[in-house]
């Protein structure tokens, strides 16, 4: 067994990814959550051979000869992972409570080895969607399937056994101790070597020293960690997380993010609901923006590009030559919608890869002293605010991207990037001042 934290990237300890002694491959009954760089790592065994006692301290220190050293930031499942991943499909799902429709005609699919982020305001239906995927409540219409199988009376228990669901509230038994809480679930899910699995989880989430304490004595953050551990104790193939980093400190939030990357790396299917846009942008392969309906779904970068277009930002060392003059030069060289932000020029290019050198050359020829040039990447927050910050109009968009006016009509364009909401956000580390990326701006001269 083993658990490692951090590795190789200067987070904690040394050496990436340690696989524990006594555990083999998945096929032999062990699922291994390898350590990525800076990632938490976990090994959960599911066969009798796990019962063997393993010196945890040694396991923490000694790399297993067969350990993998995956890249935590990788967006593609590890090619040689042997994890049987499940696809989650939600098709035309509507969920009504009485007269009220909580979820309306939502369709999306989560691929094996993908982290899918569900983002939306309070009451948008995120938790309801997760509950339907987890088989807790049935849809009023439509179909929710895990690996093609829907929840029925006969299949429900078997499907739930393959899912790890971290609910919105920790829902821990206060009168029981920390390890008893996990042990009950490990046994309900028939994890062999349950005690060992519990130990791994507790060490992973730094709760081992508190294992004998009653849960009532834990802080909110610790309870949150324990609830997350409970969702993972049975080594599930599909992981559903409802606000996993709520109440967690930044360090633990980072551990959770690393853990999500590890889950993806192993080919597990993860659906995470969150308000934390920064978090979802960092870990999710794709996001679904939900506001009762599915407003948009796609990769964060694709959503940004489709919504805001691809913009080039050119930062000058000085404001001489005058920026309006340089803006005019850029416009003549092919720049569209050229805007001035302080000493920056921002513009849309039709064929960015081909046009960027042309524009830069024109500006240099015009006497511009260029400090840097880069593609603008407005944070996901801006996509969120643009799509969900005002009442949603029009029909929901399904598929991989949002296509301009078909989503929001005229509200996509113009100066409606919600001025003050953009303050403090940053584009590539430099602040977006005042009116933000799309403020009414200064056009041309």
């Amino acid at each position: 067994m083993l658990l490692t934290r951090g590795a190789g990237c200067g987070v904690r300890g040394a050496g990436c990814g340690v696989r524990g002694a006594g555990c083999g491959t998945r096929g032999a009954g062990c699922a291994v959550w390898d350590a990525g760089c800076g990632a938490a790592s976990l090994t959960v065994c599911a066969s009798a051979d796990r019962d063997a006692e393993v010196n945890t301290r040694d396991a923490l220190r000694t790399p297993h000869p067969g350990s993998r050293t995956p890249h935590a930031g990788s967006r593609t499942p590890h090619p040689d992972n042997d994890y049987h991943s499940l696809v989650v499909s939600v098709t035309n799902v509507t969920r009504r409570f009485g007269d009220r429709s909580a979820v309306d005609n939502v369709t999306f699919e989560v691929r094996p080895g993908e982290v899918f982020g569900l983002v939306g305001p309070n009451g948008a239906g995120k938790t309801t969607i997760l509950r339907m995927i987890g088989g807790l409540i049935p849809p009023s219409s439509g179909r929710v399937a895990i690996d093609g199988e829907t929840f029925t009376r006969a299949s429900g228990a078997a499907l739930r056994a393959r899912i790890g669901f971290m609910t919105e509230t920790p829902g821990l038994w206060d009168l029981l101790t920390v390890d008893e809480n996990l042990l009950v679930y490990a046994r309900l899910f028939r994890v062999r070597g349950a005690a060992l699995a519990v130990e791994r989880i507790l060490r992973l989430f730094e709760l081992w020293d508190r294992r004998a304490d009653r849960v009532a004595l834990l802080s909110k953050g610790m309870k949150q960690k324990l609830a997350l551990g409970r969702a993972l104790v049975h080594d599930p193939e599909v992981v559903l997380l409802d606000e996993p980093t709520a109440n967690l400190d930044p360090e633990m939030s980072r551990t959770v993010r690393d853990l999500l990357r590890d889950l993806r790396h192993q080919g597990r299917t993860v659906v995470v609901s969150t308000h934390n846009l920064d978090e979802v942008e960092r870990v999710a392969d794709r996001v679904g923006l939900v506001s009762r309906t599915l407003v948009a779904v796609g990769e964060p970068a694709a959503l940004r590009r489709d919504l805001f277009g691809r913009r080039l930002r050119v930062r000058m060392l000085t404001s001489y030559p005058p920026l309006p003059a340089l803006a005019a030069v850029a416009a003549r060289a092919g720049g569209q919608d050229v805007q001035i932000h302080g000493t920056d020029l921002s513009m849309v290019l039709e064929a960015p890869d081909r046009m960027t050198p042309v524009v830069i050359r024109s500006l240099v020829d015009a006497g511009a002293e260029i400090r840097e040039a880069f593609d603008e990447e407005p944070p996901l927050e801006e996509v969120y605010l643009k799509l969900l910050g005002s009442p949603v109009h029009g029909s929901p968009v399904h598929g991989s991207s949002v296509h301009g006016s078909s989503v929001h009509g005229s509200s996509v364009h113009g100066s409606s990037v919600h001025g003050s909401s953009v303050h403090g956000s940053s584009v590539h580390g430099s602040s977006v001042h005042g009116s933000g990326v799309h403020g009414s701006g200064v056009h041309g001269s």
Partner: protein
Amino acid sequence: MKADRIVVLMGKELREFRSSPAAIAPVILLVVVCTVLPFVVVIGIPRMTGQSITSDRVLQHVVSLARGRVPGLGRLPPDAAAQAFLFQQFLLLFLVAPIFGAVSLAAYSVVGEKQGRTLEPLLTSPMSTSEILLAKVLASFLPSLAIELAGVCIYVLLVGATALPGVTATLVSVRSVILLGLVGPFASLTALQMTIAVSSRVNDARSAQQIAVLIVLPLVLMLIGQIAGAFIVTTPLLLLLALALAVTWIFLIWLSAALFERETILTRWK
């Protein structure tokens, strides 16, 4: 139904009871009262007043009726027969006491899950609704049954120490075994299952506990009716009663699972 999962959840419930002795205290208190009360009536009061219990004409009449129907009474002299009859009737208290105690445990075990918001994670496990509810019923039933049996043992020992010769032997009979071994447990299980069924629909434990009256009331009426001489419940009748309670319990397992609406619990329990 998967027995291993039921056992796991029962274990969790029992650990919670262990962590909260106050939950078990009412059961113990009731059993203590049930153990002491008969001795006050049958031994204490006659000694204090200096009058034999057979001086009561009504009791004389009832005991004479029971002599022909209750095994063992016919062989005893009048005083001993009266004592034996009364001690046998007070055994019924040991059916009622654990029901009240266990019902409070059972009601809390569902409503408590609601208040602690712990039911949703439990519903994400592979356990079926029937398994969850049965585990809760059995977890409440077992400690109360253990306390009841301990109380009965102490009761019989005390009867042996204080009653007239031959009285104790009448308590150790097939009738008592059916009463305490079948009627009592099935009455408890039926009351508990009803309580669990109701507790998944209500917001507080007290509302759920009230349903137990439906089971306790007939048992109390049986006790009063026999002591008053209105009727004597014979051994075959007790066997039938046990069978009826067993069938009712099984039906209630199904009914409570049907009444347990996951959706309502998840979405409307606040």
